[in-house]
């Protein structure tokens, strides 16, 4: 089938099958479909849309058909995305399973693991969370202390993870566990799949400076996982984690430039524009203009890196530049939002549901340059891997 035919048929199918309620932008967290055992659909449209898309494998269009995917080529997947965007169709399913675990299983998983887990991710039946960070580990991810001791054909796992987003709502966790106590720091780590219903696994939300958060602490207290749940080989966890992190980085960058309030909108909201529609404070206007320039440059860079990737140039350590610049830019955007909003931006709670949203988003943005590898780590990566500067 030619790409043109594919585009036409895709458009027709989307037109016929995407429910009207799924053709308006998501308004908030509740409009995003995460799936999982305990998922409650926000609407019938949301349910129908997921079912229809999952049936074609189009929740994960580029995955192989045998694992619940759409089996589309890269070009076809791009066309699907394009057409969905054109009709403002929402994503039928978002999940860490799709963004992170899926790619890792496709690359490192056993055939059994792929057949067992991928289709459930594709259909939104199982919701996954990630268990990497530990209290005190921070940027030094390889220093983790959660321990798995072999007992027959099971690992007995003890330890604690932090920043496990949505762990309280997830069914399974993919976790890094130190299984070889005597191996060098980076080598003794395994990547293990653990059912959250396993006895000894518990979770507790973390309160952030921006208020309630999806982040949790997750505890393992003699929790057991069969050896067959290790992805790749025991001790290969570090490589898999690095592979996944590059996917996470891409996600954070796309958050950083995705819509939301900008300072010009903020100035209008707060009535801080003059009769010509110019931002009233000329100094603030200058700051916003410089932000716009940097945002345009970043937007162009995302396009360039994509074009280069399409041409076969690896993104590689350049992902670190994108992560660094994108997140710092997003923080600056939110700071200028707050300046443009003046006292309006300070509101924390009010009678309206959206009261305090600007402040919460501003506070939340501070995490951008910490999560997924801090800005400092990204700069280290650029210095070492791109510029090849010598170590101390």
């Amino acid at each position, binding site marked *: 089938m030619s790409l043109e035919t594919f585009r036409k048929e895709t458009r027709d199918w989307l037109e016929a099958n995407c429910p009207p309620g799924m053709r308006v932008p998501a308004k908030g967290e509740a409009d995003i479909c995460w799936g999982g055992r305990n998922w409650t659909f926000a609407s019938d449209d949301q349910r129908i849309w997921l079912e229809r898309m999952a049936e074609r494998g189009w929740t994960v269009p580029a995955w192989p058909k045998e694992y619940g995917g759409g089996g589309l080529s890269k070009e076809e997947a791009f066309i699907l995305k394009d057409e969905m965007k054109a009709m403002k169709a929402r994503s039928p399913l978002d999940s860490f399973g799709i963004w992170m675990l899926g790619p890792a299983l496709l690359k490192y998983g056993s055939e059994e693991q792929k057949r067992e887990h991928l289709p459930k991710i594709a259909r939104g039946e199982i919701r996954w969370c990630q268990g990497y960070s530990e209290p005190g580990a921070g940027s*030094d991810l390889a220093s983790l202390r959660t321990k798995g001791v072999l007992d027959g054909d099971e690992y007995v796992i003890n330890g604690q993870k932090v920043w496990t987003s949505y762990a309280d709502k997830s069914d399974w966790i993919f976790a890094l566990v130190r299984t070889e106590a005597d191996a060098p720091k980076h080598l003794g780590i395994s990547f293990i799949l653990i059912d959250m219903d396993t006895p000894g696994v518990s979770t507790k939300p973390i309160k952030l*400076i921006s208020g309630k958060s999806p982040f949790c602490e997750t505890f393992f207290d003699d929790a057991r996982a069969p050896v067959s749940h290790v992805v790749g080989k025991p001790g290969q966890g570090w490589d898999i984690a690095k592979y996944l992190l590059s996917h996470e980085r891409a996600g954070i960058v796309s958050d950083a430039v995705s819509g939301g309030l900008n300072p010009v909108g903020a100035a209008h909201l*707060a009535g*801080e524009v003059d009769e010509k529609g110019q931002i009233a*404070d000329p100094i603030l206007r200058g700051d916003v203009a410089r932000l716009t320039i940097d945002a345009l440059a970043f937007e162009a860079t995302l396009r360039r890196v994509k074009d280069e990737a399409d041409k076969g140039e690896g993104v590689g350590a350049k992902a670190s530049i994108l992560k660094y610049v994108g997140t710092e830019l997003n923080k600056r955007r939110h700071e200028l939002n*707050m300046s443009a909003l*003046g*006292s309006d931006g300070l509101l924390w709670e009010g009678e309206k549901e959206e009261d305090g949203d600007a402040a919460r988003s501003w506070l939340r943005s*501070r995490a951008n340059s910490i999560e997924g590898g801090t800005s400092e780590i990204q700069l280290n990566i650029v210095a070492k891997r791109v510029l090849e500067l010598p170590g101390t």
Partner: protein
Amino acid sequence: MSFVLNEEEQMLRDSARSFLTETAPVTAFRKLRDENNPDGFSRDLWSSMAEMGWTGILVEEDHGGADFGVFAAGLLLQEMGRTLTPSPFLSTAVLAATALRAAGSDAQKAKWLPKIVSGETVIGFAVDERARHNPEHINTTAKKQGNGLVLNGTKRFVANGAAADAVIVVARNEEGAPCLVLVDCNQKGVTRKARRTVDSHLPADFTFEDVALDGDALLDGAEDTEGALKHILDVGRACIAAESLGVAEQAFDVTIDYIKEREQFGVPIASFQGLQHRAAHLLSEIEMARSIVMKALRTLDETPSQAPIWAAAAKAKATAVSRFATSEGIQMFGGVGMTDEYDIGLYYKRAQAAGEFLGDDAWGAGQVAKLSGY
């Protein structure tokens, strides 16, 4: 003009520091926040401040005050910034007291200043009507009506507004000139809406609808009310700048302590030159802010005619530096800096809110350019 503290000032600073760290540490602030305290501050603490004479720090001795000067008031606010202590000190003991002193008649001073000194009243100072500070945008009117006045307009985010017994309102008279009106919050036609802000303070929005006032509500003791208003705002700016400075200092101190302790890759993260240079740069910025805040405070005491540019510049610098110090703080704390459990985020929030109050760094820069004539 001296940039060092004299003995009295040192004693005041030291006693304030030990009082606040004992009586009103960050845990006390957290408690107020978590129990949704309807005032946004502790009434007991406010009484203690009165007992210690802080409330009268800018009040003449005739009215029971200590008359210790703006520099001293700034020292207290700097310490309150360090402990994130919320109180009506800035609105009542600084802004309202300065307003009465600069623009009140003898009778008005005699009536109100002792109440401020005794700590029995909380008075807000209401200037802004828009989201960003702009003292030239005053649409509230106070027009003559018989022997009295009638007040109409709205004011936004009046500090301590939720708890205020009265507010001093900046309005325009029938000639369009600025005037200051002291209004009881229970007066008919006054409505207020408390606003809980990101830093867990409780300012309020006020609406005045045909509020009928006696003639003595108008603060008419100044020869030049407009000049008096500028002076009041400059005092407020220098003092809130001092609070921002305290926020920056404490945020910096806890951050430095943390990076010395915190290990990554087997060494304290403070040993990485990347962080070292940033920390040293940050200290330099804090030193600059400290000097200009001191300069602004002293100038208000000693040569107030030269104060406007220093107040604007100090406000801008302290705003920028406190935001920068707390932002760097969160980044250096890393993930835990994002959690409510650690204090650094509270400092970041207060830096933002204090920064917007009476003009942020962009506003201050514009003002400095204007006052410099370019």
